[in-house]
C-alpha cells in the first residue's frame, strides 16, 4: 500500500512538472518535517514564532494580543488574527506547511490532534504553577495524565433578564425551567419575544444545557456511552419542544445569541448570551439587568452554566517547540498583569488563575460576580471525548426533536449507538 501511494505521488508530481504548473511545487506537504511558517532560526538569532488567535468580538482585543507578542523578549512572535471558521481552519492548517507554532483552541486541542501527535504535552510548561489554575479547566485539558494546553481565559454563557420587566409582569427571576417558560410568556408582547437563545431556536447553544440542567452528564462514568438517555432527559426535551412552539420563544432576531443586541434592542425580554457581552448590556441598561444560570429542568434537575477556556497549544511539527513552549509559559503563566488586562479590559472574561479573579473589576461585584460564582458552583465543561461526530449527531437529533417535533427517545437512540462505536474507536 505504501508503494501505491508513493507511486501516485511521483506520477502526479511528474505530470505537474511537465505541464509547467508546479513552478515551486517542490514543497510536498506530505513530508511533515518540512518547514513551518517559523522561519529559519540559525545560530544565536531570535526564533520566529507564528501564533494564531480566533477573531474575538470585542474591540481592542486584537491590539492587545499584538502588544503582548511584541513585548516578548526571547522570540519574534507574528500574531495571526484569524477571521472565519477558526475551528475548521486550525486542524486544516496543521495538515499543511503554513501552520501556527502556537495556537489557541477552545478547551484545548481535540482528541484527534492529541492522538495524531499534532500537539505537544504542555505539562512541564505549567509545572508547579498548575495548582494556581482553575482546577475544572485543568481537568478538562488533561488526557491520559498529561495536560495538553495552557488555559488563557474562561468564557461562560448565562441568562440575561431585566428586573423592571419581570416586575411589570409580576413574576420572579426563574429558577426552574417551567418558571422560565411562565416568565417568558408573561413578558411577551406584540413587539417583544419572551426569551431568545439564537436564530435556530436555541437548539445549538442550549443542547448541552438540557443534559446538564436535567441532572445528567454527557458521557457515562466509564466513558463508553452517553450518560443521559433517560426518561427525565426526554421529558426535558418535550418541555422545550412545547416552549419552541409557543410565541414566547423568539426564534429570529437581528443578531444571534452571542450578541446582546436583541436583548438591548428590546426584541426579547430575556436572552441566553455570553458573559463577554456584559459591558454592552451594562451600558444600555445600567443596573436594570440581572443574570441567571440555565434553570433546573424536571425533578432531578439542577441549574447549570457552560464554561470553556480558549487554551494555548503548541504544534508538534513546529521547528521551535521549546521556544514556543517558553513563550506560552511567559504569556499565560507568568505575565499575570497581561492576563488581567486580557480578561478585564475588553469584553468580560474570567482569568484562569484563581488568584487573579479579584483583580478583575468587572467580575468583582454585581452581576459579574454572580456569573463568576456560577462557574464555580454550577459550571460544566464539554467532555474531551465528546468528539465532533458525537456532537454532530447530537445536534441533528436535537434539531429534529425541538424544531421538527420528533419523538426524543427514538431520535436519540441512534445517537447513543453512534457514540458507543465512536468511543470504542477512541478508546481502542
Amino acid at each position, binding site marked *: 500500500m505504501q508503494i501505491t501511494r508513493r507511486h501516485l*505521488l511521483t506520477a*502526479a508530481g511528474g505530470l*505537474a512538472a511537465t505541464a509547467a*504548473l*508546479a*513552478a515551486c*511545487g517542490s*514543497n*510536498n*506537504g*506530505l513530508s511533515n518535517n*518540512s518547514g513551518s511558517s517559523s522561519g529559519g532560526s540559525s545560530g544565536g538569532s531570535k526564533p520566529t514564532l507564528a501564533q494564531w488567535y480566533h*477573531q474575538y*468580538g470585542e474591540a481592542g482585543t*486584537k491590539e492587545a494580543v499584538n502588544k503582548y507578542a511584541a513585548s516578548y523578549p526571547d522570540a519574534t512572535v507574528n500574531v*495571526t*488574527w*484569524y*477571521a*472565519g*471558521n477558526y475551528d475548521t*481552519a486550525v486542524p*486544516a*492548517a496543521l*495538515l*499543511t*506547511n*503554513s501552520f501556527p507554532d502556537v495556537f489557541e483552541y477552545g478547551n484545548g486541542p481535540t482528541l484527534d490532534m492529541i492522538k495524531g501527535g499534532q500537539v505537544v504535552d504542555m505539562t512541564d510548561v505549567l509545572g508547579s504553577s498548575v495548582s494556581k489554575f482553575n482546577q475544572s479547566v485543568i481537568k478538562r485539558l488533561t488526557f491520559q495524565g498529561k495536560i495538553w494546553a495552557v488555559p488563557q481565559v474562561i468564557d461562560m454563557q448565562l441568562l440575561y433578564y431585566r428586573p423592571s420587566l419581570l416586575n411589570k409582569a409580576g413574576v420572579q427571576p426563574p429558577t426552574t425551567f417551567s418558571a422560565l417558560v411562565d416568565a417568558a410568556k408573561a413578558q411577551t408582547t406584540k*413587539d417583544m419575544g419572551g426569551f431568545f437563545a439564537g436564530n435556530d431556536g436555541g437548539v445549538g447553544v442550549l443542547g448541552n444545557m438540557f443534559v446538564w440542567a436535567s441532572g445528567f452528564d454527557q458521557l457515562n462514568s466509564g466513558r463508553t456511552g452517553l450518560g443521559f438517555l433517560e426518561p427525565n432527559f426526554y421529558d426535558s426535551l418535550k418541555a422545550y419542544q412545547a416552549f419552541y412552539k409557543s410565541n414566547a420563544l423568539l426564534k429570529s432576531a*437581528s*443578531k*444571534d445569541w*452571542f*450578541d446582546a*443586541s436583541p436583548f438591548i*434592542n428590546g*426584541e426579547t425580554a430575556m436572552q441566553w448570551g455570553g458573559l463577554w457581552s456584559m459591558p454592552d448590556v451594562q451600558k444600555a441598561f445600567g443596573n436594570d439587568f440581572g443574570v441567571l444560570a440555565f434553570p433546573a429542568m424536571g425533578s432531578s434537575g439542577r441549574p447549570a452554566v457552560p464554561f470553556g477556556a480558549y487554551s494555548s497549544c503548541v504544534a508538534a511539527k513546529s521547528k521551535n517547540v521549546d521556544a514556543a513552549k517558553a513563550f506560552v509559559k511567559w504569556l499565560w503563566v507568568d505575565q499575570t498583569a497581561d492576563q488581567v488586562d486580557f480578561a478585564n479590559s475588553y469584553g468580560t472574561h474570567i482569568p484562569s488563575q484563581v488568584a487573579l479573579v479579584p483583580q478583575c473589576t468587572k467580575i468583582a461585584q454585581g452581576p459579574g460576580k454572580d456569573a463568576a460564582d456560577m462557574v464555580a458552583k454550577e459550571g460544566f465543561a464539554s467532555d474531551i471525548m465528546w468528539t465532533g461526530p458525537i456532537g454532530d449527531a447530537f445536534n441533528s437529533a436535537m434539531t429534529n426533536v425541538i424544531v421538527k417535533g420528533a419523538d426524543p427517545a427514538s431520535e436519540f437512540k441512534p445517537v447513543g449507538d453512534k457514540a458507543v462505536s465512536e468511543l470504542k474507536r477512541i478508546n481502542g
Partner: protein
Amino acid sequence: MRAVRGRSARVLVVVRYIVLAVLAVLFLMPFYVIVRNAFASSRLIAAAQWQWLPDQWNLDNITQLFTNSDVEMGASLWHSAVMAVVQTGLTVVVALLAGYALARNTHRAARILSALTIFTLMVPAAVTFIPTFVMTSALGWIDTFRGLIVPGMFSAFATYMFRQSFLGFPKELEEAALIDGANPWRTFWQVVVPNSMGIIGAVGTIIFIGSWNAFLWPMLVTRNGTRTVQVTLSQFMTSQLVNYPELFAGALVAVIPVLLVFLFLQRFLVQGVETTGLR
C-alpha cells in the same frame, strides 16, 4: 371581424407589457435591497417595520467597511480580482488549444479525449472537491494563488464550447495560411483566434463571472493570505462582528465589477450562445 381581432391583439400587447414590467420590478428588487441596506443604519435594517427608503445617504458604511480591520475588504477584493483575471486568461488559453485540437482531429486519441471531456462535464469539479483539496494540500498550495487558481483552470465546459465553435469554423482560412508556410501554431494564433473573438468573449465572460463568484473552492483553500471577497462576505455574515449595513456595502462593492463586465460583454454572451452548439 378584422377590427375586433386588431383590438384584442392590441390589448394582448398591453397585457404583455404589464406582465413584463411587473416581472422586471421583481427581478430588480434584490438589487434595490442591496442599495437600500448599504445606505441604511443598523437601526433601520432591524426596525420593527420594513422601510423602503434608506436613511443614510452617504458613504459612511463603505468607509467603515474598508477601515474595519476585522474584515479586510480591500485585500479580499484584490485576491478576487487576481483570481478572476488570471483564471479567466489561463482557462481560456488552455481550453482554446484543446478545443481546437479536438475539433480538427478525429483519430482515436481525439475521440477518447473528447469523451473524457464530456465525462468531466458531467462530474463537475464541485462534486470532486475533496479529492482536489487533498491534491492541493499535498502540493502545499493551501492559501496560495496557485492553489486558488490552478485546480480550476482546466474547464471541460470551456473546452467543449470551443470545440463546438471550431467545428463550425471555415477550414479554408486555415488551409490558406498553412499553404503560405505558417505552422499550425502560428495559424492558430494568427488566423483562428482573431476570428473567434465572439466565442472567446462569451466563454471568457462566463468563466470570469464564475470565478469572481466562486465560493466553495475558495472557502476550502484560502486562509488569511488569499481570502476572496465571496468568502469574506459569507464569513462576515455569520461572524460575531457582523454589521448589516457594512455587510451590504460589501455586497454592493463586490457586485459592481462583475455587473460592469457583464453589461459590457453581454452582447458576446448572447451571440456566443446563439452560434455555438449549446442546443
